[in-house]
């Protein structure tokens, strides 16, 4: 019985590790400049977590195999070093391991959150609402017009509550339902929620950030690969949560400019 348990534990542990080692289900290929840091951190953590996992499960299995079955005549043996060894091992091995992970992991975090966007970053505003994303480009003047929540009207396609009649800055703002960005250019994303909490998640971009109603948060990233990707909502926002998505289209600068012109004409 006990030996069977030991074998089961080992089989489960190895079977669990195989898909990880074979990258059966791995993060999609990264398309951002900050992504490699995260990916590197992910594989480091995976290595440490994987070793801890396999070691713990296999030692557990070995000890179950070895010591199960009452042998009344035998003597109790104590693990060499006893509890002191365990505490020291945890403090030294695991302590340094997690501290190292923590410290090195901050590089990726800092590159996203502690550095302001560069001066040439292209500002784009994204507004999340139940259950769609809308994007706004400032247009030729480079300025976003102010928002007027009371004027939001989905029927009139006024998703942001822009007052184009009175605000000169709003006149040339371009509102779209998909996010098109030029490749290799830093994007400064200004995130605004009009109703409840939402989130902006692009797995390929290694970007996830919640929208906070009442507090506009901002993000910056640079996409490095042309293509079409999905933006999904990851913060529970109501019945249509599963269906709240938009497309991110990374274009060459020329394509982007012509796309922007085309969108401006549609406004």
């Amino acid at each position, binding site marked *: 019985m006990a030996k069977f348990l030991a074998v089961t534990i080992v089989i489960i542990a190895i079977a669990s590790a195989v898909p*990880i080692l074979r990258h059966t289900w791995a993060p999609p290929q990264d398309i951002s400049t900050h992504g490699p840091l995260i990916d590197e*951190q992910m594989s480091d953590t995976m290595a440490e977590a994987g070793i801890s996992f396999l070691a713990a499960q296999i*030692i557990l299995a070995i000890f179950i195999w070895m010591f199960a*079955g009452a042998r009344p005549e035998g003597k109790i043996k104590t693990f060499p070093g006893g*509890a002191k060894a365990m505490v020291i091992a945890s403090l030294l091995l*695991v302590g340094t391991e997690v501290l190292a992970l923590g410290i090195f992991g901050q590089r990726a975090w800092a590159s996203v959150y502690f550095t302001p966007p560069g001066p040439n970053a292209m500002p784009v505003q994204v507004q999340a609402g139940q259950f769609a994303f809308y994007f706004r480009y400032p247009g030729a003047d480079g300025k976003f017009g102010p928002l007027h929540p009371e004027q939001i009207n989905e029927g009139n396609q006024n998703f942001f509550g822009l007052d184009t009649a009175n605000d000169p800055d709003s006149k040339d703002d371009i509102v779209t339902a998909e996010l098109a960005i030029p490749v290799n250019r830093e994007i400064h994303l200004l995130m605004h929620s009009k*109703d409840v909490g939402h989130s902006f998640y692009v797995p390929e971009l290694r970007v996830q950030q919640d929208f906070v109603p009442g507090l506009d948060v901002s993000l910056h990233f640079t996409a490095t690969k042309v293509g079409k990707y999905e933006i999904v909502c990851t913060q529970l926002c109501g019945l249509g949560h599963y269906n709240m998505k938009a497309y991110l289209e990374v274009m060459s600068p020329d394509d982007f400019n012509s796309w922007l012109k085309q969108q401006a004409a549609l406004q």
Partner: protein
Amino acid sequence: MHDMSHATEHHAHTPPQGFIRNYVFSLDHKVIGKQYYGLGLVAVITGMVLSWIMRIHLVWPNFAIPGLGLLSKAGAPGGIVTPEYYLQLMTMHGTLMVFFVLTNVPFAGFGNYFLPIQIGAEDMAFPRFNMMSFWTTFVAFLVLIAAFFVGDGPPLAGWTSYAPLSAVGGAAGPGEATGQTLWAISIAIFCIGQLLGSLNFISTTLDLRTKGMTLWRMPLSTWSWFITSCIGLTAFAVLLPACILLILDRTAGTSFFIPSGLVINDKLQPHSGGSTLLWQHLFWFFGHPEVYIAIVPAMGIVSHILINSMRRPMLSHRVIIYSLLAIGFLSYMVYGHHMFVSGMNPFSSLAFSFPTLLITIPSTVLVLIWIGSLYGSKLRITTASLFALGFISMFVSGGVSGFFLAQPSLDIYLHATYFVVGHFHMVMGVAAIFGMFAGTYFWFPKMFGRMMNETLGRVHFWLTFVGTYCIFMPFHYLGLAANVRRYSAFVDDYLQPLLGVHKFITIAALFTGAVQLIFLYNLIHSRFRGALAPANPWEATSLEWTMPSPPPFDNFGGRHPVVYHDPYQYGIEGATNDYVMQDSPEEIKSVRDER
């Protein structure tokens, strides 16, 4: 020393008369413990059925679930779950499981039954309080269940009830009307019940220990209940006002958690000035300690059972206690790791990530001591010890994924994916439930005076062990592939290749759920037909095994046991048996217990 503990209300040494006094409004901690266990059983079955419905809906969205249409005409017309009903069931599943199962059974249930017995007391310090705390919890349960039957059904905002979705009311869509208010009321009541329970647990542990039962001589399970009640005392004290403020937001028109200028369905909301992050802070300040309220008792129970099966004390009694204490303290400093990408100040994320990583250290100490104590032991395999060993395996599997989620940089990718679902289900859900199973198989003879069927128990263990791994391991893979959680259907293009994994999980979940019928059958059958249990079937040392099974009304029959030994005197050389009970005056050369 003046009379200290006897000023407390103590009932007479004769059992009360009548069914109501005996089994319903009973003051006896043993009955109350069983009541908590029963309530947890009802809640876990309900929660499990809900998870079945959700799993089925995820992979066979057009499958009409028989009878579901009767429960909710709007939510599941003809038995086919609507997207909002999926989220409502998910919310109820989470709330029932976290509050009414994981908090109730290992802590309030087993704790109530065995804490007084293990310290040699005849009851809790405040039996009337104890009864009140159960019935308060019961009312909370009824209020929560009532949400199924009101207006547009149960709440939808998840067990975390993030504002403003949970606070703006019916405007935010279905599932946000009366049901959500009932949720907040239910949880507020639940907090009161747990606070009463915690007060009782702490004072009982400190004041009602029998002669010789010093703090260090308390069994590890008692220690874990004691530590849990200390966490509960301050954690629930924060959730209570948070829920009250949420109720005010929903019913009285305040806007603590609702910011200005929200537009829902083209309508500007009248609220202004609140902060959604405030709710998250208050909720998670409770929420993270709550995770440890669920797992610490399971750790204690498992240690207690493991020692008995290994026939030797742990490598160190005290280091285990210190580790549990360290986990308790750290639990207050790490709550922000639930909020890394929720818009919290990015500098706070940094401050929260280090304590979160540090919590690995006491957890590792615990695991190493459990495994290290196995070395050189005389491990006896019973169903209880199988579940205890399974707990270690599960705790390790769920624990290592904590390495990832403790780091804000990886949380950018993994937050709100199935990786998180896999992590917390394994480390706090399944591991705690393994603790409960182990506790049930171990203590059932004491609680009901009859043995459980070992063969059925083993079958139950094997199928559950393999089954839960089949369910929850793939969750991690889905998370690595960026599969977002809380989706009622996977319409995104990049999720299509993952549907096969979901099918596998659903089948595993249906199978593992069905396996629990073996447990239920075993439970009910053994309760009435099981072999009569001797007083000490496991040759254990702690005080609960010194009395007949089931224990008499006042536990020790009016006598006060005197404790002479440490709780776990197993493997004694020169003793009559290989173990010496705590209250045995036998002179022994104690097993070396390192500190």
